[in-house]
């Protein structure tokens, strides 16, 4: 398997943390100098989870950037999913936990990067068991949460109530479990689950998913779980998903049941480059990589995407091209985030209790 070598080597810094990192997200900066990130830690020795706001100081003198913790907040249990909204004046975080609660946090980056819980939903029956994924709508007034219990909940937080109200959009009673969710538009979102199944939901048409992408499309042999979904704001008809067996595929709603396989299992016939054979934990559209043939802006072409995987690969995939490997770690890369303001910078959480910061040049 040949990988395209990066034309310009990127700078990578690995910063040991002494705690397990469940998730990591950039926060939109308030000034040009300060960079902040939110990190969901889990301390196995004391069994205590925490969400910390850290200041990333590039520190040109020293060999690696310095991470300074600014503030910390303790959730009731370990974080299963962490998302941020960018288009708000203060960064808003949505954190979902293994005990089935959702917390909306607001961070004040100007006054010392404090973080405090704005609101919480944790009542019995919100989710039974862990919340597997949560997504914040841009603008940060609503978030949608899904779980393996088959519940799809919509949490809205307009107003200043510390107790959030939520609305059950659907309850599959455990017959279907959902493991990923992503907003597509103010009223639509997509979910993913077992057997590489995807569902499209529209709040204007309640009662169930409006469209389903049939699971088990690869004939059961290499079936798996969707771990992450991304939808590009300019191409709302395409739903990008990453999951087991190194599989990254796109579902174009206009071509109902035919997946566009970008990496991994595939349908067998086409020689699709195999980047990784294990779980793809996260997928995101990569706004830094410019598509090589800029003239080809056909809406059927999938924009460049970045993935991270269980076998330690961080790579950029472009449709029809050799994947570009950015990192190959000896341990898993659990999550990553591309800085929206400064897309050359990527922050990753590594399984071996460290954070990697990658600057592409």
């Amino acid at each position, binding site marked *: 398997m040949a990988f395209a070598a990066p034309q310009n080597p990127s700078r990578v810094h690995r910063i040991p943390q002494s705690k397990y990192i469940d998730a990591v997200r950039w926060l939109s900066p308030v000034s040009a100098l300060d960079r902040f990130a939110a990190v969901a830690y889990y301390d196995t*020795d004391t069994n205590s989870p925490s969400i910390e706001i850290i200041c990333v100081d590039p520190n040109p003198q020293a060999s690696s950037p310095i991470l300074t913790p600014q503030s910390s907040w303790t959730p009731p249990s370990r974080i299963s999913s962490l998302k941020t909204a960018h288009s708000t004046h203060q960064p808003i975080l949505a954190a979902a936990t293994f005990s089935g609660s959702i917390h909306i946090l607001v961070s004040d980056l100007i006054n010392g990067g404090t973080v405090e819980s704005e609101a919480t939903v944790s009542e019995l029956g919100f989710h039974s068991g862990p919340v597997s994924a949560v997504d914040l709508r841009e603008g940060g007034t609503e978030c949608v949460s899904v779980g393996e219990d088959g519940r799809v909940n919509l949490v809205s937080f307009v107003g200043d109530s510390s107790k959030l109200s939520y609305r059950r959009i659907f309850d599959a009673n455990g*017959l279907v479990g959902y493991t990923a969710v992503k907003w597509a538009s103010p009223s639509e979102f997509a979910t993913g689950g077992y057997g590489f199944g995807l569902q499209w939901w529209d709040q204007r048409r309640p009662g169930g*998913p409006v469209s389903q992408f049939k699971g088990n499309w690869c*004939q*059961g042999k290499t079936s798996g779980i969707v771990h992450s979904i991304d939808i590009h704001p300019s191409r709302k008809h395409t739903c990008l998903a990453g999951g087991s067996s190194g599989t990254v595929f796109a579902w174009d709603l206009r071509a109902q049941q035919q997946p566009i396989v970008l990496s991994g299992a595939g349908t067998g016939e086409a020689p699709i480059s195999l980047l990784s054979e294990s*779980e793809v934990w996260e997928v995101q559209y990569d706004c830094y990589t410019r598509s090589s043939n800029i003239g080809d802006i056909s809406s059927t072409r999938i924009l460049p995407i970045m993935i991270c995987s269980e076998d330690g690969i961080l790579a950029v995939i472009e449709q029809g091209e050799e994947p570009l490997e950015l990192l190959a770690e000896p341990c898993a890369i659990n999550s990553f985030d591309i800085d929206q303001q400064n897309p050359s910078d990527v922050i990753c959480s590594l399984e071996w209790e460290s954070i990697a910061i990658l600057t592409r040049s």
Partner: protein
Amino acid sequence: MVLLIRVSGGDLLDGGVHVDDDADLDTRWCCEVGAAVYPFHHGLKSPISRLSISWSRGNSLRVSVFAAPSSVESVEDDAGGTVVEVKLGGGDGEISDAHWRRIAYGSVSPFALLQSRKNAISSLSKMSMNSSPYDADWWDYIMEYSKDINALLGSQKPASVPVIDDPKSVIVKGEEPTNLKAAWELLEMFYAEKPSHLCLPERLVDWLADFDSLFSGTHPTVHSKLVDFQKELVNLQVVEDNPKYWEVMSSALAVGWLDIVVKMLRLHGSYQLDQLSNRETENGLVEAVAVLISKMPRMRLDQEAGKLGECFKAKPDFVKAREKWRAQINKLDSSAFWFQCAHLQTREGLRSMLQIMLGNANSLCSATCHWIELYISHLLYIRPLTVGLESMYSLAQKSIQLKPMASAHRLMGLIIGILGENTEVVLAECLKGFGPWMVVHAIELLTAGSDHAEMLLLEERPNLGGINIEELHRLVYAQVLSSHPLTWQIAPIYLISCMKHGMVLLQILLSKQPVQHNQLLLKSIEICRLYELHSITANIMKIAGVHHWKHGRKGSGVFWLQQARDEYRLNRIAQQLFDSVGKTISDESFKQWEGLIQLLGSDSKTAGGLEFLHKYRDFKKSLQHVFDGKTTDAARRAVESLISLMKNPSTPQRFYLPLLYDSLKLLNWKDRPLLNVSQTNLLLTKLQDLSLARLRPDFIESELPPQALNSVRLALATNLGRAILEE
């Protein structure tokens, strides 16, 4: 109230568990016996009636404290008991748990790389029947491995070099050295750097310079003398009047810290401009000694920038230069200038330094603090050409006789073991002083070049259950890794390198991992995939499937059982699913089922008995069309799926009647009979089977109106008549 758990010596909980109000008394008792005390608060108000202690993960104890049932029921908020985890042993004082984990993570790649190279070399030598598997590359690999591990243990370089050199700062503070790094560097220099044996004495000098401070805790050291003097130095006006100045310099010179000595000599008062004129001779002597020190010939390969002494790589050159240098010292020692030196302390101090350089055994002995320092000084000034571990060992023995160890230090034990060429002692010291990580990774160095050690460590031992010492230690280390929720996933790397028991233990380890959360479950499956443990994968998936199923996550359960291709369990859960199907697969709840049915797919192999659901859904769908549109085509399709459902052996008998009852409209189709004679006969036979099945005690009645059976019979009979007429 404080609860004390007594843990004594070898036998855990030998002293039992005592609940005691008087904490002080118990602490005293424990100190006397040398047991550890772990106080903790259980926060219970009522008296304790019972305690239960069990192992938790790692080396934590789980202590369950039960309160006596209180007779007064008014205390409602008081808990009836509590569970506390007590972590035993603080581990290594100088290295935190998180740091140990970082070392464990970092050593995975070098270890795995070395193992794969070893395997490649051994398979290559088997092919070519080459007698010597160790070639030049081999030493490069070993050295690379050792350097990689060494880098993990911290860097020795000072964090930042001050821009303005303070003349009065004698010692530069770098990163705090650790015993672990010191031990690894010892192993590296004796076992990995085979070719540079001639330079071993100089390597030891460097080693002591880096790590002498480690002995300060338990022994007086030259380093601690220097640190003490450094504090005084700031307040001293005339340094040369202070006897400590000369004492410290002699000591530093004895252990070969030349740059420190020269720097200190330059603090001598005679260098000051106002005194230079009347202390000319004195200053000349000081400078002469300083020059002699900085010109000291040294037998070493390379010299770090800023370090003093002249390097020689070849023995004859070195011997010649050393003779010349000693002659110069002798000449200075017997010169007449000493009589013109008025300052007594300077004269005495400088001449004793000359004695050290000339290798006067008594001077060396009095200048050094512990035996390693004495040993180093002997290597520097008396026997710089000591070659071979045997002579180095006898020299060490001599040093220990002159300066007996007041208390044992783990590094000292290790040095003696290495010099004595006693592999067992080295291993034992590594294990005792630094734990299982050290042993596993040090064995790679120990066996690198020594056939004797290789034989000793790789010989299969019946008393160890047929495994060798190397495997034993790897298994122990893997066990340590497995006991922590974060490090268990690197244990497979070490288990897989164990020929005899590794694979079995790996299978046990993987089978014992929790399956509740997908991330952990997928991690276990990933490890199984890497080592091709397909049966374990299937087992894990089955466990996960049943777990999810039990917790009401039916979709997840079905998925994992399907992945495991566990038809037996799929059929079993199918029976349970069917119970709820009859009730809930009505039109409004159809969307819930839709996802599950899609997940099942059309492949009956992986769906097990659940294949029925798929067909049932199709039938319901077509029936829906019939009710919506009433076209004969739709009705025909519905009939087809009804017939195929009824023909299919996987259709449970208890669904016969509901299916037929649902299709009453088809049976009584207005325009013409939709079923032909044979089809109707089939349905009638099935109905007959059903009435026989109903006699069995385990038959489950479907919830239908009581007249359902009769109306189906009637419809079928009518249809049969119509069909016969039509044919």
